[in-house]
């Protein structure tokens, strides 16, 4: 495997690990979201397209 490919895999693994806390928080969710939590989620979804990696 090429070194660049290995680096890409390492970066992806790190990116996944960074997401674990929010994933665990989502999986821990045992009740319907509060209005405040809903607003945060909606805000996060609305802001996705502002990021460079979301632009087509």
């Amino acid at each position: 495997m090429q070194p660049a490919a290995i680096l890409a895999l390492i970066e992806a693994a790190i990116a996944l690990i960074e997401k674990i806390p929010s994933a665990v928080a989502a999986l821990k969710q045992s009740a319907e979201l509060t209005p405040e939590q809903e607003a945060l989620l909606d805000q996060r979804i609305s802001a996705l397209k502002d990021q460079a990696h979301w632009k087509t």
Partner: protein
Amino acid sequence: MSNLITFLQGKKTYFTVALAILYIGGAYLGFWELSDEVLAVFGLGALAFLRAGIKKHAAPTASKLAVMAAMVPLSLALVGCSSIQSGNDPLVVNAERTTQLAVDVFDTFLKWEYDNRQTLSVTPEIRKTADFIRTNGQNWLLTARSMTKAYKQSRTPENKANLDTAIATLRTAISEARRYLEANGLTPTP
């Protein structure tokens, strides 16, 4: 067998928590559905082994105490995963969980593809899938949110069917993103 038992001595809490993390990771990446019962078994198992470990070691070292202290909230967190609070609609809770997970998986996948585009150019399908999610992902998420809100306001069979469809769309996209992460050796095969 005795070798296995010897190997596991003093490591059962770590082993149980590691398995639980793998289980949650698999659910996060769409390998399997999250089961409340399995999470409860992991969480309670870790707590039970933790308690047994404290009992065996009358004077644990500071480092062991620190590790144990870190394990307690994690074990409790796993137990906390285990049930949907009474009075809450499981359909809504699962829809909101899936939507939040979809945001994370889409964002991770797209950033990975964007940061490593040159390296990944040997597999054009990855770029194609990423662009498909870039084009439609936000709409899928907004639709899921809209259907969730509609169902919360009026829990009719029609709104339930619409919500089921929106969540199924998200799950399919999550699986597609996961397929490429898995194909690149990033995730374990179940």
